[in-house]
């Protein structure tokens, strides 16, 4: 089966004035369908940059990235957006909700971009909010939700379109233990039930403990890549 992610010699170098700062130094990585993988490493090790280039939010300076066997290097901004819309869900460290939309409308947003009919869209958005334990809070705007609730809305938004791949950047960083535990369990359940692939950049030992594959990065390189049996959530 074609892997969902293939990175071949991926490099990303930022320039700050005349100084070149390498963030990724030749990353080779393959993630199979249905994986539940964590990506760890110290700050500045390149985790977020790797997620960004895999998701087409940034472009690598060198190397090649394939999503479901298709190279994304030649895609323009609109084609990358289209790819994200149909294939990839994002969960960011900060809650990243659209402030003028309610919880339900935030979850509905991508479904509306996809042109899902209204009745189906509402049903799927409500179901996603129900899955993350936010039933009854559909009409609240982000400013009236707690941090944990906002992050759950972001997860529901990422999952409602049923993407093939979810890229999550420190999804538990701003959550308390209870909320973090519930979120990990939710992601694990969805991985098991729907086969959605998760690649999660995290420092959180609780998330790492539940992953089936753990990757470590240091100074823009992969220094550890091991598979294990996940702990029960």
């Amino acid at each position, binding site marked *: 089966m074609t892997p969902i992610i293939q990175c071949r010699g991926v490099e990303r170098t930022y320039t700050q004035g005349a100084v070149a700062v390498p963030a990724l130094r030749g990353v080779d990585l393959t993630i199979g369908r249905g994986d539940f993988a964590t990506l760890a490493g110290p700050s500045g090790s390149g985790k977020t*940059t790797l997620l*960004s280039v895999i*998701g087409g*939010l*940034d*472009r690598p300076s060198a190397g090649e990235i394939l999503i479901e066997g298709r190279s994304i290097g030649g895609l323009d*901004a*609109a084609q990358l*957006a*289209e790819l*994200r*819309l*149909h294939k990839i869900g*994002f969960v*960011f460290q900060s809650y*990243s909700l*659209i*402030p*003028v*939309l309610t919880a339900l409308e935030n979850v509905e*947003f*991508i479904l*509306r*971009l*996809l*042109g899902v009919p209204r009745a189906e869209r509402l049903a799927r958005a409500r179901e996603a909010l129900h899955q993350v334990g936010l039933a009854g809070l559909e009409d609240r705007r982000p400013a009236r939700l707690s941090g944990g609730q906002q992050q759950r809305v972001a997860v529901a*938004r990422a999952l409602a379109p049923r993407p093939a791949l979810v890229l999550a950047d420190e999804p538990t960083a701003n959550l308390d233990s209870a909320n973090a535990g519930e979120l990990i369990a939710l992601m694990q359940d969805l991985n098991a039930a729907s086969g959605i692939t998760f690649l999660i950049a995290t420092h959180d030992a609780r998330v790492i403990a539940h992953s089936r594959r753990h990757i470590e990065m240091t100074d823009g390189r992969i220094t550890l890549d091991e598979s294990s049996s996940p702990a029960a959530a």
Partner: protein
Amino acid sequence: MHLLALLLPLSWRNLWRNPRRTLITLAVVAIGTWSVLIFAALFNALATGSRDTTLRLLTGHGQLHAAGYLEDPSVSHSMARPGPALRRALDAQPVAGWVERVRVPGIVQSEYRTRSVTLVGVVPQGERALSDVPREVIAGRYLADPADPGVVMGRDLAERLKTRIGKRVILMVQAADGHLAESGLTIVGLYAAGKPAEDEFLFTGLGTAQSLLGLGERLSEISFLVRDEAALTEVVAELRRAAPGLDVAPWMELAPLVYTIETFGRYYTIVWLLVMFTLMAIGLVNTQLMAVFERQREFGLLQALGMRPRQIVLQVVLESALLVGVGVLAGTALAAATLAPFHHGLDLGFLAPGAEIMGESRILHPALGAAESVRYGAIIWLLAVGAALWPALSAAAARPAAAMSR
């Protein structure tokens, strides 16, 4: 369509994230629109007032003369009454009415003073439909019929001649055979139509004037009105075909100053619109650039969620379109409310002497036509939406990762 249904409410809500900024921008657009519309209404009123005063005095929408009359408006340049072809053209549907006149220079003398005037011999019934002079008689009466031997003169001329209704004046003109003809005529009415006209035109019956001048049934001019001014060019062309030996001139050629004032009015309004639009555009672009800069992270997020760059451009443009649209509507409503009290006219009494020199009537009627309001509003709206493309394009230009890291 479903994209607009998604983005319109989103854009509207985004506008109210910073109500103070939105209200200030709305006020700028509304005041700008108001000023353009008020300016246009006043200039239109000035141009229309000047035009109507001139056209409703004697000019009409156009006139026919013997060749050479316009250069030398004397009795020697007379023309026969209209023949069958010309009469058919004058009686055609697009022509609202027409009158025959004799119009020659002359001298009027009272027992105290002498003044040069233009003697106008008229058919009173026809003049009532074409000219405002019969309605502007302020003392005495207007002429009764073409054979009426009385004269109607301007109030100002009567004052200058130190004469009054019921007195006789001596009128001297050059007759058709070249001799100096004179006749004593009784003043039967005084009219008020502004000083240049009051001083110049002296009216008597057409038959009386023809008899004095020895013209038989010959005429100096035919003046006509059209039902729809859009058809004037066509009517003039038809009359020229029907009377190839005569000069047929539309009012624009007969009253070039009035035409120039009207044309200037249009251009002044456009210049004012451009000035106001430039000021509005600077404010709008500045505001939108600030809003876009503040929301860079959000635009990065929207792209990360799968919105295409052009959809982001559309969203920002929609925000401007809504903002300017509401501002234009408010400005238009404000302009209509401002003009409503002057529905029956704006009295320019304090400017009357100057206004008369420009051919203006004393009362201006500033009005805002629906089509004109829509046209100016649409121009402002379209230009402003065009100006919003700059911030919109800059919102969509950044890579999502870079935008989200700001």
